[in-house]
């Protein structure tokens, strides 16, 4: 500040590479921008944080009003702060028979439980209070059983969750790979050759996206029944591939158009065949576009709900309808739903993170060149 006034220019420098010569007003602008960014990030991340907290809540805590957002471990982390002495009407701490103060939970605190996570992986059955007491004393139950026994539930077997999750991985993963691979070949052809009726073809490909999926589910359902691919992995992979193709052809064509065809022509005259030139020259340069397209296709196939709900029942059912139809004993098991949703987020986050360097350039659709 002082230095600025001694040597600084008369009028404010709003942009400068010299930190000591930036006017305080401009520095304030940076601060404001940073604060705004942090607020936006906090707003965006809030649902995810809330989801994470819900995974470790009991059912009453999950729907408690006012909401609870500080987790503590009984007799562990944060428990000293969260457990406060109960007071009598005159303001003195209430004491129990042994003269110890009676403790109660602060309204914003909830104790951590793993019942949602355990409940996700196992089928449960409600016990009578007598059974519960009897089972609690039995030494043959492991830690997972004991967590649910506290709620009066007993594990009866593994749940469908692992199976559904695997279905999602197989169906979304395979259909994404296929959609990008076929899309790349089609886009390359559209980008490089004069194909008769090219605009019509491209429009036709795009038009498959114009109807909302729900409209075509019934005809597809009937077709699938006839063909015997109802509730099969093949059926779902086929469907998602077809739906993603329109997106991938259009996106990739845009990216391939950006790559000068001189590169391939140079490779051609250098003695490479068309396919070799494609692999050695075009593919490395299209990496950005391929990454962006992959992520878009994956997100669609991974999150798709309507088709999966209508066209699968058990064998090929994917996560989205499975999560939605999670049932507990007498009410919605929020912790189980939250845990399933959290696990459901992970693959897309991992893939997006892995491809982030390409995406930064890719999602601007070639506006920033190398």
């Amino acid at each position: 500040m002082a230095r600025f006034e001694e040597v600084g220019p008369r009028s404010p420098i709003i942009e400068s590479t010299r930190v000591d010569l930036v006017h305080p007003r401009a520095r304030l602008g940076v601060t404001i921008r940073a604060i705004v960014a942090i607020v936006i990030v906090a707003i965006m991340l809030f649902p995810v944080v809330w989801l994470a907290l819900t995974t470790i809540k009991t059912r009453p805590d999950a729907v408690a009003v006012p909401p609870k957002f500080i987790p503590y471990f009984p007799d562990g982390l944060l428990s000293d702060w969260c457990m406060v002495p109960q007071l009598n009407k005159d303001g003195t701490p209430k004491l129990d028979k042994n003269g110890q103060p009676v403790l109660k939970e602060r309204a914003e605190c909830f104790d951590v439980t793993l019942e949602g996570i355990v409940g996700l992986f196992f089928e449960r059955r409600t016990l009578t209070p007598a059974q519960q007491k009897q089972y609690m004393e039995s030494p043959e139950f492991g830690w997972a059983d004991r967590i649910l026994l506290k709620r009066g539930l007993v594990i009866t077997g593994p749940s469908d969750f692992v199976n559904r999750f695997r279905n999602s991985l197989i169906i979304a993963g395979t259909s994404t790979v296929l959609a990008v691979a076929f899309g790349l070949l089609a886009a390359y052809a559209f980008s490089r050759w004069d194909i008769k009726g090219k605009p019509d073809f491209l429009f036709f490909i795009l038009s498959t996206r114009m109807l909302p999926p729900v409209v075509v589910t019934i005809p597809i359902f009937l077709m699938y029944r006839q063909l015997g691919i109802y509730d099969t992995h093949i059926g779902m992979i086929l469907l998602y591939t077809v739906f993603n193709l329109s997106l991938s052809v259009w996106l990739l064509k845009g990216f391939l158009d950006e790559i000068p065809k001189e590169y391939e022509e140079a490779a051609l005259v250098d003695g490479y065949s068309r396919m070799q030139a494609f692999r050695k020259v075009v593919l490395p340069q299209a990496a950005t576009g391929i990454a962006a397209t992959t992520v878009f296709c994956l997100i669609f196939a991974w999150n798709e709900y309507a088709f999966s709900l209508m066209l699968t029942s058990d064998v090929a059912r994917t996560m989205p309808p499975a999560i939605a139809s999670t049932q507990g004993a007498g009410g919605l098991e929020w912790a189980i739903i939250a845990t399933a949703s959290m696990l459901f987020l992970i693959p897309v986050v991992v893939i997006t993170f892995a491809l982030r360097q390409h995406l930064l350039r890719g999602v601007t659709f070639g506006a920033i060149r190398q």
Partner: protein
Amino acid sequence: MSHVELQHITKRFKTVTALRDVSFEIQDGEFFVLLGPTGAGKTTTLRVIAGLEQQTYGHVLFDGEIVDDLPPPDRDIAFVFQQYSLYPNMSVYDNLAFPLRAPMRRMSEAEIRQRVYQAAEILRITHLLERRTSHLSGGEMQRVSLGRAIVRQPRIFLMDEPLSNLDAKLREALRVELKHIQKTQGSTTLFVTHDQIEALTMADRIAVLNKGRIVQIGNPTDIYDRPATIFVAQLVGVPRINLVDARCDDGTISIVNSSVHLPKPVSGDLPRTFKLGVRPEHVQLDPQGEFVGQLLLIEPLGVESILHIKVGQQSLVCTVPGMTRHKLGEELRFNLVRERLHYFREDGIRIQV
């Protein structure tokens, strides 16, 4: 090395005809230049020879053999593009090695190495080999492009304006280098340019192309001293040739709207009206000169100065060596070198006299 022949090549695109009945031959070891303005069909000619474009009619022959149906990889040619020909994700070494690594060549890595170093030495880019191509200057990039062509011994080098994206100094330097390499390697080269200086300085023979047609084929002297049309006369030579309307009446030629009258050349017939072409260096200042004019404008270039002389309503451009002491508005006397005058019919065709 080889002999390349084009027979009656016509190339039509959807709406335009890029080449009309183009025929020429390139001899073994020749530096052949295709000269023409933008859109004349020069690049299309190259692409047809390379096989990147299929001609509508006509044949391409390599060593007397028709290669119309051979795809580019099998034609064994090297193509230097105007730009974009280096792979940005590879080092200079990998760029140079790329043509040799083509699966069809089955060349050992040791031999590739030797060839790359040899080419790098010729082009003096050995110190750049490990660099990424994105960190090269324009001149270095174009050197590497040339290197990619000379690492293998192709039948013919096709060069599509390789120098036009460089600045003037570099262009001059590379021009000399390119000609030197071509002569020492004895490689057959087809060089495309719109720059008449490049054409005149490097070519063994020049083909002038305009609107998809060959206008004239000849060595640089033919092209400069005996241009077949007004188009060629104006295309080559800086400053441009003086072109004035002239009349011919009973043995005297007079430039329209001026005081210049010349006797008609002994041989040859001239029509009543025609165009007279005079190269600026053939307008010679001479205190005892036959004609008189007024100095209108001076462009001093150092090596020479360009003087614009007003004669009647016409203006003639003339060059004099070095800087000039003449003043604007001064009366100047000059001669025209009679035996170096060019006569063109009104439709642009040269009249032989």
